[in-house]
């Protein structure tokens, strides 16, 4: 597990905990919406803001609609320099 991926999982985990969904298991391929993590629009908006706070950019803001954590991790793999603040 690389650090960007670890940080993303941590952000999602704490977001779920605050949303009283702490018992939901966070896996890379769990769908973000619906039966997976069950994030609603405001929680997804928060995820977008938190990712931007952490990495300076985020897939939602870039116009993408990732469906699971893997797709978010994949987004940062394509963005040069992303994740530096997480590694520091």
């Amino acid at each position, binding site marked *: 597990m690389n650090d960007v991926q670890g940080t993303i999982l941590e952000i999602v985990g704490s977001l779920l905990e605050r949303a009283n969904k702490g018992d939901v298991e966070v896996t890379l391929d769990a769908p973000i919406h619906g039966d997976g993590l069950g994030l609603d629009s*405001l929680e*997804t*908006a*928060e995820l*977008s803001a*938190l990712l931007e*706070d952490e990495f300076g950019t985020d897939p939602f803001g870039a116009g993408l609609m990732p469906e699971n954590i893997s797709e978010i991790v994949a987004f940062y793999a394509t963005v040069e320099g992303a994740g530096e603040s997480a590694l520091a």
Partner: protein
Amino acid sequence: MIELVRRFAAADPARVAIITEDDQWSYGRLAAEADALAHGLRASGTDRFAIVSNDVPFIVALMAASSLVGAEACVYAPDITTEDLVRQAGTFGHEVVATTRTDLGDLPVTLRTPEDLRAEGPRIDQLPDSRPLLVLTTGTTGLPRGVRHDWSRQLSRTTAARDAAGQVWLLAYGPQQFAGLQVLIHVFSTGATLMAPPVRRPQAVMEALHTHGVDHISATPTFWRFLLAELRADDRPVPSLRQITLGGEAAPASLLEGLTETFPEARISHIYAGSEFGSTGSVRDGQGGLPAALLERGGDGDISLKIVDGELFVRSSASMLGYHGDTDLPEGEWWPTGDVVEVVGERIEFRGRKSDVINVGGVKVHPLPVEERVSSVPGVKVVRAYGRTNALVGAVVAIDVVPDGTVDERALKESIRSACADLPRPWQPRSIQVVEETAMKGNKIVRGTEER
């Protein structure tokens, strides 16, 4: 302005009008300087001009001089860049700039120093019918707007002002701000003394408070919040203030409590004023908001208030004449203040600026109640709530927090989230950033929705 300065110059010429870092100006000296500058303005045929200076006695004397000869003075930000100065002078048609700055170089305007402007002549007693004044608004973006006022209208309610000899007021606003002008008018109409520090940030005025016996301050809630934080970090005894005036932004209850605790002897007032509609006077009961009784004063008074669709409207005899470049407003025009209010019991409570409303997925969120909630969390020194554009819901509430250093960052975010947990979900901050300082303009916090 000239009539205020002359009143005390005649009664008590040696009384101190202005204290600066390295000088003192009596009312007598100030009145003489105003007379000399008035002759200079008249002799040079200057009927409109800008002032670019951080020398407050010079600014006040020039304002008084301009009010004596009917020349329209306009105070620019003292530290304006030459680029902005040229642009602003172009916008407002200022060909003459009165200045004490020596770094302006060669500009496409005529620069005049105090020495250039002084001239001798017999005392001028006849006040002109028209005594214009141009005040620039502190817009958060782009060029400021010019707001045309008239000295006689601005001073009409000061004639019966009492003699407040010995009071020392801090100039915590810039001399170019409408609120700064209100402080000048108040101080000189009551024969009090103005302490004009070279730098007006809360961090920079501490020394002046102690050295010059400042006991009256009018400032923004943001200024007061920072001043309280500075005082907590200062070993010296807290200066004994007698008057605390807040204006420019809504004042949260938590701040009023902090001020009452720190300055138990001080009277706390609020001023509700705007560059366009003038000052509506001060509210002295120490509570936030305005008394709802003001809404029922009928339409005959100097100042009337009404609420239309949640927005406060003001009609005032001290309102502006109109914007620069526009025709005069009709007499008795109601002015939309842009302030969103709600009547709660006996009080008109401020909810925020109309333009600061954050649209979270169609829900209108006001940043002030969020700030109020967060500012009561232990460990928070200053908080700023604002909208951040968001691809999914339009905008989310974001907050910047300046910590006071007593609580660990992770724990601080945790307690902020808990403190906001019972707010409606769109109101809850979705991003909490711990920062060293918050975005400010003219000692006010910048809110509204930001592009990222």
